[in-house]
């Protein structure tokens, strides 16, 4: 499980630092472009071609196509950017929380409603 490439090393906490941002720049640009309806259409029509247009690495493209959310974070995605793709898919931040924690959406949502998760 990645804990981010940052100078900080906090368990279970990816740090979006300069190096991560550099690795993820093209992919994050792709995600940002999805704010635009015309771009969402183009993306959905041929996701691989759209990824190539934005210059994603093969690994990044694979993560995007497979909706491997953890891999997108590991490969330099910023959660605020990755979320643009999730929104397009109709996925909520609780769904993503369920993925990142391995709890699944329902348990994650229940944990949040119960006041959130704690350390340790």
């Amino acid at each position: 499980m990645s804990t981010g490439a940052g100078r900080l090393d906090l368990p279970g906490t990816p740090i979006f630092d300069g190096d991560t941002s550099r690795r993820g720049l093209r992919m994050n640009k792709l995600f940002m472009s999805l704010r635009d309806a015309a771009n969402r259409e183009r993306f959905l029509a041929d996701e691989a071609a759209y990824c190539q247009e934005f210059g994603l690495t093969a690994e990044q493209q694979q993560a995007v196509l497979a909706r491997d959310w953890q891999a997108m974070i590991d490969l330099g995605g910023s959660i605020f950017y990755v979320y643009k793709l999730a929104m397009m898919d109709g996925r909520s931040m609780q769904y993503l929380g369920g993925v990142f924690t391995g709890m699944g959406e329902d348990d994650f949502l229940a944990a949040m409603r119960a006041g959130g998760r704690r350390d340790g």
Partner: protein
Amino acid sequence: MAEVIWGLATSHVPSIGAAMDRGKTDDPNWKALFDGYAPARAWLAEHQPDVAIVVYNDHANGIDLDFIPTFGLGTAERYEVADEGFGRRPVPDVLGHPELSFHLVESLVDEGFDLTVFQELAVDHGFTVPLSVWTPDPGDAWPCPVIPLLVNVIQYPQPTAARCYALGQALGRAIRSYPDDLTVGVLGTGGMSHQLAGTRAGFINPDFDHMWMESIETDPARLAALSREELIRQAGSEGIELIMWLIMRGAMHDQVTKVHSDYFVPASNTAAGIALFDNTPPAG
């Protein structure tokens, strides 16, 4: 001279705006949050400023990752509300106050704050949700001109808490040195504790949040001493955006009077807080 008359700290979670835009404020999952806003909103309606300054961060809507300003200040006449990918929020565009903006830029640059000046900027939920928390029904226009003050909280290294507090103090001096008489409201946004990614996603730290809520009123210097690492550890990787409250607080007097505060979990994946301060020392 201009003067800060109040400071409002509030979370800017997008789902708060969505709940308002979709008429879900009485929904059982949301009612307590909006009930908690009511006393602040009532007081604010009686204390209308001439200009407001919103300290916030963008979330991949107004600016890209091509460049990441530590601190940005808008000098535009109008700020468009961004379409974040699910349609633009049904709220008015924001009118700015270029004259005050130019004064702030000059004062702050002279004090050694290395601002990025924005002449064009689309504002996202980080900016409009706090305006909605303040003014739920703006009609055709927000109650007054608003100036955006952008902070990098997304990409490490964020400015230190101490630097944010110092910027707030300089902002207060800059406001007071404005030649015209203006009343100013300052909004510090973001937080409270939350983390969106990693195995620690969903992390909420009520103890830290309560300490923060208390100290932002009585001992902001204590908060300004927290390191970036400590903030991420205690408040979560996204909770670090609480540093923006310190800019608001720094612009106020050392002693302020709390009008109202409230705390609510969860607003989406986030602990949501509100704290409203009258910029006059407490009576007695």
